[in-house]
């Protein structure tokens, strides 16, 4: 199964989505990412019990913060899938890229020269 997913997606591996922090998501947006999504295990199937549920709550927190800042909350998403669902992984990557394409580039742009 050689499935392809959009090259725009950069993967950052963590041992469990429970490790994902609010700051990881916020800092990505701050540094100019057009969107960030967290791909966790299926709900109820977390190896560490509830890491994926905690990740969802953090994603929701960041969505609320973005909304407060007038930025589309859809730029941050939580997905759940098992490690055996390769096809679903590619599908989610395409879906997320589709959402971001529709929203357009991030409005968070530095005005100082790098």
């Amino acid at each position, binding site marked *: 199964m050689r499935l392809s997913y959009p090259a725009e997606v950069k993967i950052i591996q963590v041992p469990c989505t429970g490790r994902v922090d*609010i*700051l990881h998501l*916020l*800092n990505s*947006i*701050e540094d100019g990412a057009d969107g960030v999504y967290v791909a966790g295990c299926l709900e109820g199937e977390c190896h560490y019990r509830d890491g994926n549920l905690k990740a969802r709550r953090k994603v929701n927190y960041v969505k609320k*913060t*973005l909304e*407060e*800042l*007038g*930025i589309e909350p859809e730029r941050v998403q939580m997905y759940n899938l098992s490690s055996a669902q390769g096809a679903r992984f590619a599908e989610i990557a395409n879906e997320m890229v589709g959402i971001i394409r529709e929203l357009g580039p991030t*409005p*968070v*742009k*530095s*005005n*100082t020269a790098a």
Partner: protein
Amino acid sequence: MIVADRKSLDEILAMVENNKKILIAGCKGCVTVCNVGGLKEVEILASSMKIARKKAGNDIEIDIEVLERQCDREYVEGIADVVDDYEAVISLACGVGPQFLSERYKDQIFYPGVNTTFFGGATEHGVWEERCAGCGTCGIHLFGGLCPIARCAKSLLHGPCGGSSNGVCEVNKDTECIWDTIVRKKMEAGQLEDLCSVKGLKDWQTARDGGPRRSIREELIQGNI
């Protein structure tokens, strides 16, 4: 502990809208425990503000410091070397923090990033409730260990008012009538008679009514302890 709520991002952003370089100062005391002004919250606020300002095309440089406590002069000293590097400072400590900072660093401006609300504790994760009004004359033991000064909307000392209904205060349907709880507790303990004693007039001079308060411990001043 002292409990506080963070001000809205809009309010905080408006405070520093004309500034390009600021410091956010957190506190490792009460506001860390009530998850409003510790390291994590300082970092989240800094990142959120930077996102907002980048979006507005008006970048801001934000550094962070988290002091051991902002209510002790020796810890306030911790930012002495850097405080002048900034156009403004946002303090995420309780209302004591920005004042201690303002008193020490007279040329700097310190904005409060939180609204300090009450003395209380966490009744469940994410929920804090008021337990003490700091009235200066504690008589909790007279009321079954429950404080009617802080927890009765009218601070009554001799039983519930007519607004008590099914254990709920008329002021807010989510507020228990503490007098209902006190009476039930004393009844269950067979000590209802304790509540019949007439309490003398409460001396409110020890509360805020006597003006700003001061606590002087001579033995500490003299260095005996």
